[in-house]
């Protein structure tokens, strides 16, 4: 089963302060681990929404709005697609994310099974 995992953003990830080299390295190792386990399909970490743009269509009119966006809880900081036999395994992979190491971390992920077009 293919799942998209959305990592919800927070104030740190919304800032332009880059992650520490150690964290970068840990993230690379984490990706590598998923790849070696044969489960990783794709992974992208996103720039803060200050670099993003929203495109809307309403009543036949397109409008665009540049970031940053305010409703931090709903913002997405990263997208991972994995292929695993069960949702439990997707959850088990999330729990290994190196950004969750320290005690005081508050984080939210959303797991969404990919729509089976077939």
């Amino acid at each position: 089963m293919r799942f998209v995992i959305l990592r919800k953003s927070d104030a740190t990830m919304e800032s332009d302060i880059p992650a520490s080299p150690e964290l970068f390295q840990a993230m690379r190792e984490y990706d590598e681990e998923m790849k070696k386990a044969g489960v990783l399909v794709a992974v992208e970490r996103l720039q803060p929404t200050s670099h993003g743009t929203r495109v809307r269509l309403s009543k036949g009119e397109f409008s665009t709005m540049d970031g940053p966006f305010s409703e931090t809880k709903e913002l997405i900081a990263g997208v991972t697609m994995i292929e695993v036999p069960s949702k439990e395994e997707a959850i088990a992979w999330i729990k290994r994310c190196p950004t969750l190491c320290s005690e005081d971390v508050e984080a939210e992920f959303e797991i969404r099974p990919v729509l089976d077009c077939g």
Partner: protein
Amino acid sequence: MTATAIHNTIDAVWRMESAKLIAGLTRIVRDVGIAEDLAQEALIAALEQWPESGVPEKPGAWLMTTAKHRALDHLRRRQMLDRKHEELGRELEAQELTVPDLNAALDDDIGDDLLRLMFIACHPVLSSEARVALTLRLLGGLTTDEIARAYLVPEATIAQRIVRAKRTLAQEHIPFEVPRGRELPQRLSSVLGAIYLIFNEGYSATAGDDWMRPGLCEDALRLGRILAELAPLEAEVHGLVALMEIQASRSAARTGPEGRPVLLLDQDRARWDRLLIQRGLTALERANALGGSRGPYALQASIAACHARALVAEDTDWARIVELYNELVRIMPSPIVELNRAVAVSMASGPDAALELVDALTGEPSLKGYHLLPSVRGDLLAKLGRYDEARAECERAAQMTRNVRERELLLERAREFAAHSAGTN
């Protein structure tokens, strides 16, 4: 967490960790059977303790530590036993029985251990059925029951197969190692063969009510992808991965309403999984870049890629496919490849030329009982307007297949040809 949720979590963790556990433990105790028992003991401990204590923060590490302790106990017992034997003055084989530094042993490149585990599970000393069962069990993390259900055989059969395989490996003193030099190609092909057998059983179930068993395809794909990471310089590994990815891309389109099979040229190609195709083409490029374009799996993947690249069936480059089959027949002569080549020839040059090839195969002993021979022959005859013979061939094919869905399809075609036959008479 509810008890069910905890069990599901344990299942997931087991699937993710068991191969690594068993691989690391085999290196310590030097016996894949004992290693698996130790890993199982750790699993049982988890099943007993986690519902009470909750799932530990690092479940994989927990299992590893628990198993390590059991391994240590095991080695100590063995050492004590050996000392006793010494006291009795019995002759002992010179054997190093010092307890190794377990932490170092387990943290040392686990990838190498996994690769060794793949090679030992697929050792040529085992029957191909045993290799498949052992691979699914030791590397795929499937339970005996799951394997039995996937293969529609009693659980006891699989359990016995696994026990025997482990015993054979111990008796023959098969070393836990990655083969080198001249031995490597043959041993690797044994591993690839086992993975592809698993895939194929999932892709075209040889028996039963379902045309496909996607779970087995996914297991095989995952094993293939893991192997490609472990042995990135082996072209044929990428060839096999490419082949499986591209074939799997058609899974959704291969089954119609009510689970009926849909043949390649009738499939709705919009339902092919573009992501898997892309992964397959990338893997094929890697195989080719490593100089492996003429390996049997890479060639089959190239054929599959020809289909994948054609957006509609009419765009298929049949001439190229025939060329690839010609090459495949040269390096891997087999009546089944020859039969597939005939199908490609019929598309490239018409049914006459193909029928000649197929007729040459009808006396082939290894194809006796192979339902696709009369099935292909029936199709060719129908294309030539010889509907009566075509119907007879399809009926024969229907009798031969053990897959219910396929039988229905063949009988339907037989009826179709019968109608044509009535129409022309």
